[in-house]
């Protein structure tokens, strides 16, 4: 039983990592849209964030699970599950990064402008490192959320920790034992994500971010 639950936890972790990775990538692409001078593109960004964030994860999961086959793109529950987590987290990540960029002090931007840096160097050398630093704590927040949100995917027949737990309960009726262990495993995974975040913060501290507000 425990082995099955541990295996489920591995699937959960795999889904979360896949969703977080793709969601981060999508978020990084989306965030700059939120800063464009072109109003239609900026509006598009906000509409995307608004709808994605405003849709319950369960509804989004069902929508994609039943929607993909309609679009003739049917790759099974795991692909669908990863897409769900990617889309859902991308909106949060995009806003987290946008917040990081907004936290950059105007004075640092002015320094960069006064050096006459070309836009790409400006983005890569100044805006991105500072914004990502400021975004780190809320970023870890969303990551922890995603680990737990993956449990919703059990509804669309993605086998992971929650579905494994439900299967075992159906066979053994050990409701509280099994759910207790599952909860413990979720906690350990979230704790691990949190520790990773702290470690990243400490690393950045040695790289010059001591005393930086935010």
């Amino acid at each position, binding site marked *: 039983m425990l082995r099955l639950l541990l295996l489920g936890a591995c699937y959960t972790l795999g889904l979360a990592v896949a969703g977080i990775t793709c969601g981060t990538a999508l978020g990084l692409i989306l965030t700059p849209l939120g800063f464009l001078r072109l109003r239609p593109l900026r509006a598009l960004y906000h509409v995307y964030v608004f709808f994605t964030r405003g849709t319950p994860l369960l509804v989004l999961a069902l929508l994609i699970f039943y929607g993909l086959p309609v679009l003739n793109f049917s790759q099974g529950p795991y692909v669908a599950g990863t897409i769900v987590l990617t889309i859902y987290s991308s909106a949060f990540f995009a806003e987290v990064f946008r917040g990081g960029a907004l936290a950059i002090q105007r*004075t*640092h931007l*002015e*320094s*960069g*402008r*006064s*050096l*006459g*840096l*070309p*836009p790409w*160097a400006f983005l890569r*050398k*100044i805006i991105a*490192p*500072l914004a990502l*630093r400021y975004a780190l704590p809320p970023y870890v927040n969303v990551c922890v959320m995603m680990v737990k949100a993956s449990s919703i995917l059990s509804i669309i027949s993605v086998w992971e920790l929650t579905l494994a737990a439900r299967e075992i309960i159906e066979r053994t009726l050990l409701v509280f034992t099994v759910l207790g262990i599952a909860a413990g495993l979720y906690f350990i995974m979230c704790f691990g994500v949190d520790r990773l975040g702290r470690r990243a913060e400490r690393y*950045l501290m040695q*790289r*010059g*971010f*001591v*005393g*930086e507000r935010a």
Partner: protein
Amino acid sequence: MISVEGLHKRFPSGLEVLRGIDLTIGDGEVVSLIGRSGSGKTTLLRCINFLEEYDSGEIRLDGTPLWYRTATGGDRTRLPESAIRGLRQQMGIVFQQFNLFPHMTALENVCLGPSFAHKRPEAEVKDLAQRLLERVGLGGKMRSYPYQLSGGEQQRVAIARALAMRPKVLLLDEITSALDPELVGEVLEVIRSLVLERMMMVIVTHELRFAREISHRIAYLSRGQITEIGPPGELLDNPQDPTLKEFLRRMP
């Protein structure tokens, strides 16, 4: 040479912060801007390298009009961003709060401009940056991050960062105002050495003694206008403008 002609600027709040500034700074000349807070001296400095937009007037660097292009009909448009970047590279500015990039070492801060704005080869940039940091007395702190440096050291890195662009003019915006008194000297020492090299400088300052020592001319700003300008001796010892007299009386 920098020439400012008829510069007007109004803040969005409606306050007219610059009301017709005319000022010419020659090559190798050091001009200090003094005046009460709110008189427009910092805004003038920021207009010169276009950190602030202005409503009318013209700024020229060696005869070339900066920042705006005026069509024959009199319509004014901003220069394209790439042109603005190119012009900014010819000027250095040092801020009151140092504004070093916190995630870069002293050396990286100084290298950034030449590497990416001038696209010079890495070895050459590093060599230049090392020489500049040694020159401001920080040869031993090149690998330090800004948080590991004192205010005076950070400000000297900021000066080296500005110099690394080989600017035609250096704009200094109250560069000692945020420093502990005992750290002011080391920063001013660097500026003195630049005066000897005939670096063109525009300095906003509250340090009247320093302004007197290094400036060729001092300009007194009051309510967005230069009401008096002249050599330090004349302006500070024999002021004509009544508000300047009052200003000097209140200064220590």
